[in-house]
Every structure is written in C-alpha cells, then in structure tokens.
C-alpha cells in the first residue's frame, strides 16, 4: 500500500495524543493547574493535528460531515463518532480538572473513548481481507499498544514505560513475522485471482496499459528487502531499545526528552513500514506474486 504521509502522520500523532489523553483521563498524569494545562494542551494539539492531517487525503473534505452517517457498518464512520465523543468528554473533563475539580468517572469514560478511537482506526485496517498483512489480531493490539506506551512515556511513568517498551518490541516482532506469512497463508494467488490456477502456472503476460494507474499507485507498492531489514532494525532501536535505555539511566528531563523524540521517530518509521509493506490482493493482477 502507498505510504501516504497524511495517513502516517495522522495515525502517529493521534496515537500519541489519544494515549496521553487516556492517561490524563485515568488520573495517571498531572491534570491540575499550569502543569495540567501543558499536558492537556499537548495531548489535544497532537490529536487535533493528527485528525486534521487525516482529512488531507480526502477528495472532498468539505463533505466530511457525511462520514458520520454509516456507523452501523463502517469502521471509518465509527471512528469519526468515537473521536468526536472522546474529544468532547475529555474537553469537558479538562475544563473541570484544571481548576481542581477532577471528575474521575468522566475521566474514565474519556479514557475509554480515547482508546476506542485508536481501536476504531486500527479496525479500519484490520477489517480489510484484501490486505492479509493487516487482517490480523496483531493490528488492533499494535495500535492500542503504541498508544498506551506513548501515554505512559509522555506522562512520565518511567517504570511502566520500560515494561511497555519491552512488551511492545516483542509484539512488533510477532506482528512482522505473522505479517510476512499472511499473504501466502490467505490462499489468494494469481491462480485464484484469474481462476486459471488449476491449469498451470499463471503469470502476467501483458498489463492493461504501459503506464501506472490509481490502483498501482495506491495499492501496488514494493519495498526492497534491504530497506525492509534496515528500517525494521531502526524501528526496534529508535522506538524501543534507545528509549528504554535512556529511561533506565538516572532520570533527567533531557534524557526523557531524547527518549520521546527517539520513540516518535521510531513510530513514524514503523507506520511507514506498516503501509509500505502491506500487499493488496489487487497486486496479483499487476504481476505481484504471493511468495
């Protein structure tokens, strides 16, 4: 799949922001006074920037309100509802909590809605049978895990963060391993795509046209094996190993800041790979193989 910058920034930033909001809602980060204001402002800014970025890839953003109508079947529509609910509840919670009136149940509801938003985003990808690499239980687990880790990291819960970083590194490796085998395991091949598989080996002899088209640009994206290994290594170092190491050293705000920046850069690389590595079934009609 095409790694669109708008989608990479959307899922990374909103994951960071919603994770922090969830921690604020649960009272696991400072919510009062000026410190509270800074935390809430950061969380809302990250979430807002992410959500705005997601509208950049729309052909008709002016009709975006229509996306609230089909929540019965569409995860994208559900995401829109849960996101608005999360921001409204957390906005009210923040307004009350900053002067010192923290309504705990309201915060819990807000935290649930924040994680619900992340979960809905993940389900948009996980529901797609056409992209076997995404159609896995690890997809929602990864998205939720990254958001919770970011929440712990940004709210300064050092020991939680270190544990979460280790767990997430393992989950990420598992997701890659399962993902690499997913297309072959799905049973979709050029043979089933053309219905000719029973007759012999099927190979694209001539594409429909000499140039690219919307489908090839959007869904038939190849990452070189060499880049794949390099980038995966970078993700493991930047998103997990380096932040964990920095947090295990005697605490200083500078080291924590570097840990946050490193984790975010690692997350961006992870999201780039998440899209770029994902093979869409339609690629089989354009000469991609299931191997």
């Amino acid at each position, binding site marked *: *799949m095409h790694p669109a910058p708008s989608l990479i920034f959307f899922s990374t930033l909103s994951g960071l922001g919603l994770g922090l909001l969830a921690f604020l809602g649960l009272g696991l980060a400072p919510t009062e006074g000026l410190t509270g204001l800074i935390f809430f402002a950061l969380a809302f800014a990250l979430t807002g920037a992410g959500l705005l970025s997601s509208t950049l*890839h*729309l*052909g*008709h*953003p002016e*009709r*975006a309100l*229509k*996306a*609230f*109508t*089909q929540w*019965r*079947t*569409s*995860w*994208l*529509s559900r995401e*829109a509802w849960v996101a608005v609910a999360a921001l409204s509840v957390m906005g009210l919670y923040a307004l009350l909590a900053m002067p010192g009136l923290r309504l705990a149940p309201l915060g819990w509801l807000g935290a649930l809605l924040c994680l619900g938003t992340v979960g809905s985003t993940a389900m*948009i990808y996980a*529901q*797609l*049978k*056409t*992209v076997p690499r995404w159609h896995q239980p690890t997809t929602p687990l990864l998205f939720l895990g990254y958001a919770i880790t970011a929440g712990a990291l940004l709210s300064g819960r050092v020991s939680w963060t270190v544990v979460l970083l280790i767990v997430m590194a393992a989950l990420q490796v598992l997701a890659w391993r399962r993902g690499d085998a997913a297309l072959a395991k*799905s*049973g*979709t091949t*050029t043979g*089933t*795509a*053309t*219905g*000719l598989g029973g*007759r*012999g*080996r*099927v*190979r*694209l*002899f*001539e*594409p*429909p*046209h000499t*140039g*690219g*088209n*919307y*489908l090839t640009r*959007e*869904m038939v994206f190849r990452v070189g094996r060499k880049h794949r290994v390099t980038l995966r290594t970078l993700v493991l170092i930047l998103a997990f190993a380096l932040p964990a190491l920095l947090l295990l050293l005697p605490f200083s705000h500078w080291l924590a800041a570097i840990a946050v920046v490193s984790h975010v850069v690692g997350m961006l690389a992870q999201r780039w790979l998440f899209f770029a590595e994902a093979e*869409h*079934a*339609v690629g089989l*009609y*354009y000469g991609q193989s299931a191997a």
Partner: protein
Amino acid sequence: MTALPETTERKLGLVIDLDTCVGCHACVTACKGWNTQNYGAPLGDDDAYGAAPSGAFLNRIHSFEVQPDEGAAQTVHFPKSCLHCDDAPCVTVCPTGASYKRVEDGIVLVNETDCIGCGLCAWACPYGAREMDPIEGVMKKCTLCVDRIYNEALPEEDRVPACVRTCPAGARHFGDLADPDSDVSQLVAARGGMDLMPEQETKPVNKYLPPRPRDEIDVLAPFLERVDEGPKGFLGWLDRALERL
C-alpha cells in the same frame, strides 16, 4: 445505506468468456467513451495529452500466460471490471453511504454527490474495480451502464452495457444471474462459470467462463480413413514419373 440487502430481486451482471476474448480492448474504449459522456462525472484523465497520461477506467484487459505442467503455454486475455458482489466489501466500509447495492437489480453504485473520496472502498475491493477520478476526486466504478439498460430512448438492442454491445468477439454476455433460466445462467451452467478469488468471500455476481482446452485430438482420429495428401493432376504425374526414375 451501506448495509447490504439480504437478497436482491435480480442479479444483473456479466458473464465473460475467457475462451472467446481476443484482447482487443474494444470494451475498454466503449466503456470509457460511454461513461465519459453520460451518467455521473466524466471519467477523468490526468495529463491526457502530456508525457505521463493516466486516467480512470472502469474496465481493463489484462493478459495472462498459463504454463501447464506439460504442453504449450496459453495466453488468456482477461477483462476485469466490477463484479457487483452479493457481499460487496466496498459498500460496507463506506462511511458516507455514497456506496450502495440496489435491492431491485443488485447493481453496486456510487452516489457521487455523497462521496468524500477517502478511497477506503478501493482498498476493500480485492479486484481493483474502483478507481478514484483524478479530476473530480470521487470514486468511479462500473455502473453496469445503468443509464443504458433501462433507457427507453435507446433502440432495444442497445439496452445492454456498452462493453457487451461493442464486443466484436461476443465474449461478453449480460443478463440476470438470479434467474436459473436466463441465457447467462444457462451459459454459466454449461461452461462451468467460475468466481474470481472465491476465498475472499465476496460472492461475485459476474462469472468467468474458463478457456476450452487447446489442441485436443479426437481419440478416434487414428482409425479414420486416411486423406490422400499427395499431389494431383500434372504435379501428381510428375511426382510419380520422377519416383520411377
């Protein structure tokens, strides 16, 4: 509404004969032409007269090579357009309700004034049947020429999809696949019509007829009376005379 109907009264669709298709792309051109001038936004092109033209098409022809374990390879021309699936995943993912499947005839359509151009339906379709219009920013797909098949202003023989009407080889057939007595259903039954990617569980309405085996020699052929292939007339006399020398 993006919830799919339980059943549709009819299942209008195409039956495509992979044995007959010659890969001429006439259906591609006819489709592009009709759908640029009629229903909905014109099918757009980017840089149409420039160095890197690219446009939206609702029907494209791929050509595949099939290499059996033994014997010669075979080329199969493979037209591909929307299969108007019974369990169309493109419809249920749509957040705005722009995509829908019609109860009366099963055609999957996009209401272009509701489409936000998010592209999720194109991701959900395993067949690559949906393409974003590069000019309008809305999703385009095969309408089964809904503006032809019910159009009483057209002569009756033209009330079929443009691709079917134009196919010079007769490789494309249009009809109601819910009616077991329809021509298309009988064709599917007789020729072993198949679904594309059945494992994706989309239940496509369109069917593909597999190519017939090539170069099959009748088992009785060796017992038939031999046909004299020797030359006749003057050449025959010359042949016999030269042989005697």
